[in-house]
């Protein structure tokens, strides 16, 4: 039967006993879950509960993609992680804890960032893709990749006390671009890091995403196709908003067959970028770390300023005049926004670093030991 099961049939029956007892699932449904492959992108507030429930439910192959490390400010809501995980790779720490929760499933940790080049190849082996990311760039890549690969995308997103859940690209339903054809302008919609979030909110929304994933795999109930579930934790008001399918939008993405390189491609304004090795060769370089003070790792660079993105506009005068300004953050999203902001302010010689701080940290370690 299932070759990766190290346990007796009896034992595995026992683990999933409460599923198997449900008439709508039964042994056959449980075997379906054990044969399923689900990729969860982002092991953060949304990704943690999704991963915990899917691992517990016996999803046979569970992919985790995240290139961040666990930080102390994550633990308020990302309950898969422990204080002892601080500084460890999220994908690898998640794999460790989930393996402990359910050693009968295969868990694949992808300690890397999704991008336009790797998305199609990385998502291809999976049946369903769960979007637990925290930025628009990744959400549009996931949408376009799942449209091209014809796979369901389980979407969840949060803001302060409110959440949204829906299923895109399933049963001839709409895609994310049918709802919002292009990403919003930089800075128009802040993320959790900037405005805060109630810790329990991603727990609720992520659990709903896991629920939709199981429903689709088991072919039970009515998945949220063409309906956006909006939930408010303060009032308990829920609404289901109908999303019309925009066939033209979907066909355009399908016809393109590849992913657009950057969000700038949508906005027709490219952001000047550099990689770290190019940056350190430039004369008169000033690095600007846009992260908030608690974000790790700190980088031992000369000519380094700490200016959180939200304060950049008011602190432009702190920059050394006439330098080459190189912005970086954790993932590369804020640094692009910063460069756009600077260009709007007519500041010249601004670049966004292609690597995030964790990658630069690794590079510096390699340089040191070489």
């Amino acid at each position, binding site marked *: 039967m299932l070759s990766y099961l190290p346990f007796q049939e009896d034992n595995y029956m026992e683990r999933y006993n409460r599923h198997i007892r449900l008439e709508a699932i039964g042994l056959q449904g449980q075997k379906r879950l054990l044969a399923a492959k689900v990729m969860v992108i982002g092991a953060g507030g949304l990704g943690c509960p999704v991963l915990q429930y899917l691992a517990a439910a016996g999803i046979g192959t569970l992919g985790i993609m995240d290139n961040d490390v666990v930080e102390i400010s994550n633990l308020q809501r990302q309950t898969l992680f422990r204080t002892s995980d601080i500084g460890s790779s999220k994908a690898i720490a998640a794999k460790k804890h989930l393996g402990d929760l359910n050693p009968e499933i295969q868990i694949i940790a992808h300690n890397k960032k999704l991008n336009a080049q790797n998305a199609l190849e990385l998502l291809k082996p999976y049946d369903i893709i769960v979007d637990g990311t925290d930025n*628009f760039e990744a959400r549009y890549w996931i949408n376009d990749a799942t449209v091209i690969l014809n796979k369901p995308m389980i979407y969840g*997103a949060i803001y302060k006390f409110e959440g949204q859940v829906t299923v895109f690209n399933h049963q001839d339903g709409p895609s994310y671009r049918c709802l919002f054809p292009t990403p919003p302008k930089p800075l*128009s919609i802040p993320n959790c890091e900037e405005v805060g979030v109630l810790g329990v909110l991603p727990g609720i929304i992520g659990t709903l995403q896991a629920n939709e994933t199981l429903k689709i795999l088991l072919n039970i109930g009515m998945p949220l196709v063409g309906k956006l579930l909006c939930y408010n934790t303060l009032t308990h008001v829920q609404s*289901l*908003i109908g999303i019309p399918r925009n066939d033209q939008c979907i066909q355009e993405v399908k016809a393109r067959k590849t992913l657009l390189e950057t969000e700038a491609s949508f906005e027709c304004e490219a952001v000047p970028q550099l990689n770290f090795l190019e940056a350190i060769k430039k004369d008169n370089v000033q690095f600007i770390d846009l992260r908030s003070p608690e974000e790790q790792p700190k980088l031992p660079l000369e000519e380094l300023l700490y200016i959180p993105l939200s304060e950049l506009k008011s602190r432009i005068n702190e920059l050394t005049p006439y330098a080459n300004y190189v912005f970086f953050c954790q993932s590369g999203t804020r640094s692009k926004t910063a460069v756009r902001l600077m260009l709007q302010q007519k500041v010249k010689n601004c670049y966004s670093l292609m690597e995030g701080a964790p990658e630069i940290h690794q590079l510096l370690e390699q340089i040191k030991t070489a």
Partner: protein
Amino acid sequence: MKLEIKYYGILSDITGQTQEKLEIENPTYSHLLASLYDRYPSLEDTPFKIAVENQIINNDEPITNHNIALLPPFSGG
């Protein structure tokens, strides 16, 4: 028609309320947009969709029900 407008996400921060009533004669999509932009100029910088009676509508459809929701994209995860 007296429209009952619900603001989601950042729109409730911008407008300072989660819902309000707005009187508009023979409302259409663009009428509604124009009067919203009049009241809250910074809404112009924020993308959102308009739902009428829990169904998202597109440009220039007439509005035939008072139950309106304004939905911005969320990015948090």
